[in-house]
């Protein structure tokens, strides 16, 4: 049994009377790939937003490395190594690929507040930024504006930016969303690579990818946990089959 790095206890979020997430308990073990699946509207994204503090809790507790982070703001959560990516590919569109990663590095290296220094001092981040781009196979595109990248490459850039924060836990919100058929395997390999030595919690609809990558799967439906376990256990669960109507199996 590995240590639990991120835990939700009885987490609930209501929106004006509608309960999007109801008393969810979730335990993510260090060094594993943990997937959240469930039909649309099951509360996966809401849970993500709660875990990364982009949304306030209605009730419940969130523990990260044993510390209650329920009252923290998203920036502090990110600074302490719990970093998320977004459902819609989220980059700085007009900045170059290299600048996108460099901006992420600036915070860690305390080169963010200095308004009196020349940008030349940012050159010290180049080596690390290029190494991260190399890791996701984007070094040859370092001067391209992010907005001009293909979708798969935007994903890769987003991961490189996320890695720049030296995260311990990465929350991936639908890494395969919008990725073309031919790119799925490449992005999956990328996720596998970044998961090494780190913990990954991801929301994903592509069950084949989920089955390939995940150590543990939690199924959400109507804001509640329906089942949890390995892919074999979860897919054998009759309730899960009903919730999915079998239609999403590939």
């Amino acid at each position, binding site marked *: 049994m590995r240590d639990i790095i991120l835990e939700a206890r009885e987490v609930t979020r209501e929106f004006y009377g509608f309960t999007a997430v109801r008393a969810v308990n979730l335990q993510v073990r260090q060094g594993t790939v943990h997937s959240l699946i469930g039909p649309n509207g099951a509360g996966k994204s809401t849970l993500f937003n709660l875990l990364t503090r982009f949304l306030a809790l209605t009730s419940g507790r969130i523990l990260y490395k044993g510390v209650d982070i329920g009252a923290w703001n998203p920036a502090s959560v990110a600074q302490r190594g719990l970093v998320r990516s977004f459902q819609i590919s989220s980059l700085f569109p007009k900045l170059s690929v290299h600048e996108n990663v460099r901006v992420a590095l600036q*915070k860690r290296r305390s080169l963010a507040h*200095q308004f009196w220094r020349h940008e030349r001092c940012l050159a010290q981040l180049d080596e690390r930024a290029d190494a991260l781009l190399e890791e996701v196979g984007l070094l040859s595109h370092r001067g391209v504006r992010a907005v001009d990248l293909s979708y798969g490459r935007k994903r890769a850039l987003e991961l490189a930016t996320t890695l720049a924060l030296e995260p311990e836990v990465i929350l991936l919100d639908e890494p395969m969303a919008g990725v073309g058929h031919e790119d799925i395997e490449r992005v999956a390999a990328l996720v596998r690579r970044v998961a090494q030595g780190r913990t990954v919690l991801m929301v994903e609809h592509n069950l084949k990818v989920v089955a390939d990558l995940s150590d543990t799967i939690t199924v959400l439906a109507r804001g509640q946990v329906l089942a949890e376990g390995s892919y074999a256990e979860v897919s054998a669960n009759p309730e899960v089959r009903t919730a999915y109507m079998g239609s999403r199996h590939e």
Partner: protein
Amino acid sequence: MTTGIITALGTASSNRWGRATWLGLIALALLLAAPFTGVYTEFVLHALCLALFASAFNLLFGFGGLLSFGHVAFFGSGAYTTAYALKVWGVTPEVGIVLGMLAATALGLVFGALAIRRQGIYFAMITLALAQLLYFLFVQAPFAGAEDGIQDVTRGRLFGLFDLDHPLAIYYVVVAICLGGLAVVQRVVQSPFGHVLEAIRENEARAISLGYRVNSYKLGVFTLSAALAGLAGSAKVLVLQLATLADVSWHLSGEVILMTLIGGVGTLAGPVIGAFVLVGLDTSLAESGIASGMVQGALFIACVLVLRRGIWGFFADRLERARTRH
């Protein structure tokens, strides 16, 4: 292949900087030679002060993405503080300017902390409301001289040495102050902080998820912008020797927005060009009987329709295109 591209990029960008640098040097030479060419120097200095004010506004709006409708509060508080300190306390001009900037900075910190809690139109309205509060304070407060403002301010001797009543002394001192202020704007834009600001403007949610407390950066740029606007107001007092309600009136907030948009928002040269164009228009139309507001309005409409990125933005685009075609 890669080295080829990097070399090409290097020469291309140095070419562009070359052009901008040349244009800058020509402008600087004209500026320094102006007192000997028979140009009305007070016009140049007034335009320069407003150029610095517009650049400070542009730092917040063009580079920080925050549209303030009440920036005149900082220009005016700088102006009034400097005028009061020079006239009533009899301090030397450099002390007066520092005091003016400090007042504007402090006010910027307070107004900024209140305004950045909201975004877009609400942000703009809060800044406008706070600036109006200040305006009515200056209308009522005894130290501000109500309708008269603070007039006949003595310029004094800079560092106790240089008599600023000498036309060349005041000219070069104010030119130095304004160029210094513009250099600060440029440095902030090209600093690590400037890069973070750009990222926040591009995608705020992403910047937060990268661990940036965006409000502290917004407050930072707001305060810097306020300090520089205050410096512009203080310099204006040295030039015109008075601080009046016009320096805290919302009209000036509007004009500074016009200057920035006409010149080219988000560019370094744009607000300077815009300020000279508008002050030039005002001055040349003053005796013609044509309402300068009408001309300003027409110019603004023309800019919005034809030159979407302002005068300088338009030429910068042309230069860029000419460069890439080669």
